């Protein structure tokens, strides 16, 4: 059998100088050739690995005959953001991991095929969907990120009048403020949101729930509420020097670059510090995004500082490879101890200590501990902290009785119900920082629960 079709990429030397998309997408020929590799299993495991249960063998079978219109229609039955998912889902640990061909490392490139179908549809123009018969029920969705968008789309398809409240000036949540243009072009997010708007969803941006209106007030105004407020609060390490000028949370750095387009400063009004030597602390996808953005802003050297080893990096393999190709330096088993001040409270460097891995901890990961006497200084003028985020407590003001867990996450049952009647929640607000697709899965589950409830009302 033929091997996997390789994804064409922008040349690394070229792409570090622009913010254009890195992965260029399959050609039509590649897409058909890759689709032909699918065995169309009778009992497809891949579908079980998809949080939104896309009929994977179904759409791939349609692709084999060049029926891309049919294929995207199949995908869209259960996935409202295919162009996004085809790009940012960690397929290697979801659908593709369960592909029977994965045992030989030759799993079908399901994500790339999904992306091809979505891009095919975008190129020829997306047909406006037929609006569902109105049920007369009104649902409020808080947050226009992956969870909220998915819930809104599914609820609108069921005929409910949906209003999405978003605190930022643009929709998309992390897809817009967090994930960089070179990984997920913003025009794609806009197109997907436009489609959801065509389903009849009303978007209210600049609208802060917890400030303009409380959850309690929304519950009076609507028949049901979905909370998809994400985990937007950046964590800091609590080490010396963290408030120096030139230390950013990854959230701030990426929001300046992505949402506010600081890479186009001064044509766009939001500035950003362009460092020569940039250190990014953390090993997840957000850390990779921040590092690669810093490189594109003109840094001479960008390092990832991560306290565990290569095998423990939480980022997608593909993103780690992309970062390495671009010349990002990986300083593994290294942890910052303090940030050193230069003139006028700027950053001069970071004192780090080497780490060694012990026995696996309760989470199954080998816990790192510092090696005494291994302190060393790395020069830096910009430090970006990418060690995770927590749920934003703003939503909780005026939400009497909403049960919240110890880390600020909203408590839900297996059907996405919160402790309040007619209020569901999902995504990072419930799980803590996770993936786009798991948030979408939660949005989908919540929409089903709300729909069942409203139908039986």
């Amino acid at each position, binding site marked *: 059998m033929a091997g996997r079709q390789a994804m064409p990429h922008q040349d690394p030397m070229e792409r570090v100088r622009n913010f254009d998309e890195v992965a260029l997408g399959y050609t039509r020929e590649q897409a058909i050739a890759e689709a032909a590799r699918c065995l169309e299993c009778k009992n497809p495991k891949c579908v079980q690995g998809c949080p939104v249960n896309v009929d994977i063998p179904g759409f791939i079978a349609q692709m084999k005959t060049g029926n891309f219109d049919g294929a995207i229609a199949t995908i869209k039955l259960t996935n409202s953001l295919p162009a996004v998912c085809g790009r940012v889902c960690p397929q290697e640990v979801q659908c593709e991991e369960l592909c029977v061909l994965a045992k030989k490392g030759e799993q079908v490139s399901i994500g790339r095929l999904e992306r091809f179908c979505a891009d095919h549809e975008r190129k020829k123009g997306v047909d406006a969907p037929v609006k569902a018969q109105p049920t007369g029920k009104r649902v409020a969705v808080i947050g226009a990120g992956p969870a909220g968008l998915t819930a809104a789309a599914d609820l609108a398809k069921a005929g409910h009048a949906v209003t999405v409240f978003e*605190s*930022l*000036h643009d929709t998309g949540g992390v897809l817009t*403020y967090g994930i960089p243009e070179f990984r997920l072009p913003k025009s794609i997010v806009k197109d997907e949101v436009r489609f959801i708007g065509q389903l009849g969803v009303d978007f*209210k*941006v*600049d*609208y*802060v729930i917890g*400030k*303009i*209106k409380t959850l309690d007030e929304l519950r009076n105004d609507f028949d049901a509420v979905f909370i998809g407020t994400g985990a*937007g*609060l*950046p964590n*800091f390490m*609590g080490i010396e020097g*963290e*408030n120096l*000028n*030139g230390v*950013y*949370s990854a*959230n*701030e750095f990426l*929001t*300046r670059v992505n*949402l*506010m*387009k600081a890479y186009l*400063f*001064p*044509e*766009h*009004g*939001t*500035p*950003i*510090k362009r460092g020569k030597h940039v250190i990014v602390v953390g090993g997840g996808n957000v850390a990779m995004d921040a590092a690669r953005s810093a490189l594109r802003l003109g840094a001479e050297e960008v390092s990832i500082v991560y306290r565990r080893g290569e095998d423990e990096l939480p980022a997608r393999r593909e993103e780690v490879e992309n970062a390495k190709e671009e010349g990002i330096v990986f300083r593994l088993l290294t942890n910052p101890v303090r940030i050193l001040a230069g003139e*006028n*409270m700027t950053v001069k460097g970071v004192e780090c200590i080497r780490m060694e891995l012990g026995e696996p901890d309760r989470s199954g990961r080998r816990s790192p501990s510092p090696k005494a006497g291994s302190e060393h200084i790395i020069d830096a003028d910009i430090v970006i902290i990418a060690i995770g985020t927590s749920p*934003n*407590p*703003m939503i909780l003001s005026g939400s009497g009785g909403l049960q919240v867990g110890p880390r600020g996450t909203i408590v839900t049952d297996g059907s996405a119900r919160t402790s309040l009647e007619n209020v569901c929640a999902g995504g990072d607000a419930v799980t803590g920082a996770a993936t786009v697709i798991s948030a979408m899965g939660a949005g989908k589950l919540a929409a089903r629960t709300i729909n069942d409830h409203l139908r039986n009302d």
Partner: protein
Amino acid sequence: MPYTILEKKQIAPQVHLMKVLAPDVAKASKAGQFIILRIDETSERIPLTIADFDANEGSVTIIFQEMGKTTKQLAGMTDEDVLQDFVGPLGKPADVRKLGTVILVGGGVGIAPVYPQVKAYRDAGNKVISIIGARNKDLLILEDEMRAASDELYVATDDGSKGHHGFVTEVAKNILDSGKKIARIVVIGPPILMKVAAGMTAPYGVETIVSLNPIMIDGTGMCGGCRVSVGGETRFACVDGPEFDAHKVDFNLLMSRLGIYRSEEAQCQENHNCTCRGGN
């Protein structure tokens, strides 16, 4: 969703008042809160403390000084123009309670956010002594409004062109020295004024509150750009503030962080001037 400017007027050299139609914001606003606005698609988001609000009219008033490119562009706008974004009310409302006699101090454009607090403290049953100051009498704003809203009003100018010749903090010190029982002092103005005020009141042991206005993007706790150090702890001014205990604030850090983008602002200004000369 665009927001219409109902009224725009210059009230002092380089100081402007803008009343914006934003009914949802107006309805929810309380003294001490702020908004974030964005002029158009390419503008930065800037935070401004609310100077007044009228739920019936659906309006929110802001007062700002021309500083960088964005505020200069804002100053060039007029009635009927629209702002692309106007988000709020953000931050915690001022902790207004009945305390007795309170002193409210406003310096420069800091007088604007003090004004709604004067009204709120009065409404809560306090005796309000207001002190307002500016570099000179031309830069003094809202004097009539403040006089009408306060029980007592004192004026100070750096050059002595009106009222006390000197700083607002000196007037406040005189009141404290007079032995009058003061329950709280609220000071809003340039960071250096708030720093000096904090230093002045500390020996008297009078509770002193300041409103901080650091650089921020979203204003909802998401970016952490607005972090300030209060009592040795890092806090986010947007969600934990903007008001803090003046005696615990690290003003040097605040002032340093406010200057992060000084060189970029100069570059932006240059670019803006070039564009203006080349265009209309």
